[in-house]
């Protein structure tokens, strides 16, 4: 029984089928990529799964629970976290705060505990602080802990976003173009980071990426989208040899 199962997902924006007939499975510990030319509908698929849009057709099932009609916060509580194509950090919070605010959001914070700063409040805040620092250390961001998130270098901002997503203890992580705007050295580091995250945190990772090098090296399986429809699914070697994929990216031979 796969962890995430999507059948026949589709959405229509004013007559245009941004996505149609999309099928997908993901298991815990797998690293799968979603590729396709620009405008193929990849981020739309992510937004559908994460609850930002409501699908017009199809089912999304996470660990036996249907995610239909849930809002993004509820989907996150169910175990799915995502990062964004344009980095969306909390600019006015510190790096550590960005991570702490993501911890423990499925539990309700009592208003009274907040107001009377009793021992319970301090215990909890120390615990959060420690867990936050631990997570930052794991992703090698701890030296920035008290800096404002907006002041970080670009590559570190992406890592912070991933750290924040991981802080919600997800079982599935959706990464939307994590390597965008990075130079080759940073991309290599990112590759290792993604593998490390999969092994250390035991999450299933679903990746949207344009850098073919990166994708071919780390993914176990690749799905190709074009104009909202699935072109091919398979291992990296199979996809590289697939004529339809080549045509979608490079055009048909003259």
């Amino acid at each position, binding site marked *: 029984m796969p962890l995430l199962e999507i059948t026949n997902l589709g959405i229509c924006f004013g007559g245009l089928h941004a996505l149609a007939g999309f099928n997908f499975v993901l298991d815990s510990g797998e690293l799968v990529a979603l590729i396709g030319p620009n405008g193929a509908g990849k*981020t739309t698929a992510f*937004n559908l799964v994460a609850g*930002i849009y409501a699908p017009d057709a199809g089912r999304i099932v996470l660990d036996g629970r249907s995610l239909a009609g849930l809002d993004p916060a509820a989907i996150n509580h169910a175990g799915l976290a995502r990062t*964004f194509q*344009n980095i969306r950090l909390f600019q006015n919070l510190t790096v550590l705060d960005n991570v702490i605010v993501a911890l423990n959001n499925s539990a309700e914070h009592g208003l009274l505990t907040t107001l009377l700063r009793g021992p319970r409040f301090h215990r909890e805040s120390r615990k959060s602080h420690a867990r936050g620092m631990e997570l930052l250390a794991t992703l090698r961001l701890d030296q920035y802990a008290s800096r404002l998130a907006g002041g970080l270098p670009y590559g570190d901002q992406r890592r912070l976003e991933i750290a924040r997503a991981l802080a919600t203890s997800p079982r599935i992580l959706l990464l939307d173009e994590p390597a965008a705007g990075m130079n080759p050295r940073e991309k290599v580091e990112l590759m290792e980071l993604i593998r490390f995250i999969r092994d250390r945190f035991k999450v299933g990772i679903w990746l949207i990426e344009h850098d073919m090098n990166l994708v071919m090296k780390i993914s176990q399986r690749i799905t190709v989208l074009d104009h909202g429809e699935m072109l091919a699914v398979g291992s990296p070697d199979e996809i590289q040899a697939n004529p339809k994929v080549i045509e979608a990216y490079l055009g048909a031979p003259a």
Partner: protein
Amino acid sequence: MIHLFTQFPHLAEFVQQLINGLSLGAIYALIAVGYTMVYGVLRLINFAHGDIYMIGAMTGIYAMTQRPDWSGAGLSMVILLALSGLVLLGAASQRWRGRKCEYLVVIALLLAEVAVLGFVPWRHGEPCPPSWLTFVMVLGGAMLASGLLGYQIEFIAYRPLRNQPRINALITAIGVSMFLEFGGQRYFGATPQAFPQLIPGLEQHPDLFKFGPLVIPKVDTLILCVALLMMFALRHIVMKTRVGMALRAVSHRFDTAALMGVDVNRIVSFTFVLGSILAGTGGILVAMRSPKVDPIMGLLPGLKAFVAAVLGGIGSIPGAVAGAFLLGITEVMVAGYFPHGSQYRDGVAFVILIGVLLVKPSGLFGSNASEKV
């Protein structure tokens, strides 16, 4: 027709209210268009716009009834006027050398204004005899005054805050509005002043047409005609001229228009001047209808015109006009037909506001700009 209205007095009353509403709506439209244009270009709600409308009316009063006592005009005035002339010369020379000199022009304007407003003793004189020529000249004077004021406000208060978060510009707009209102109260006096007759023979023959119980007043027709004329002129400017095209470009995408070679500062100033001219006209027109003019007359109509702009879709000029007429008619109908309606008259605008914001925030003609995730 007369038989129709005599037989159905309720119908006559309804049409009467409709005409009142249309004329009220025309005035709201003149103000609302200014709001919507400035919002479209700068994404700023110009709270001071209602006060520009007030200044238009005040200019009319001054033009009609106040005379400068040149004998009392002092040395200070002469000095200030001379200074402002010098500054203008300096600005012209800078321009000739190809350098920026707008701030010099504004300083010259300010000096001249301080001279004329502060150091010339204005005395209540003989009001001009009403005539069509007077009307046109007073209207022209009000347009000039409000246009200049709009330009100065934009330059001094809003342009330095162009790159700031919008809340700062909003607060500054509120500051400008307060300045105009309280300054107006100090300078013009807080008591309402009577606006003299502009149109010849209005008191003796106030009605244009009379269909039995239905009366169509001249004033309302005039207001409607002038307002519609200005709307058409505006439409021509916005749709059919190059400046208008640049204006539309800037209101779509500020940065891209700048990259495409549009002088954004000039276009923003132009927008402000255009909106202010319309507001000033509205001030004169409303003063002809209800002749009491006081320095805080701009507050409530300004808010209501703003609601009208939101109703029509803020950022859209036809929307503002449509919203204004709708609001005017609704307000008059509520005041006329509801029990205790005249007390709730001012609340109508806000109820409509809440309704629009809850049901369709982008208004009747506005578009929903959603965020890309």
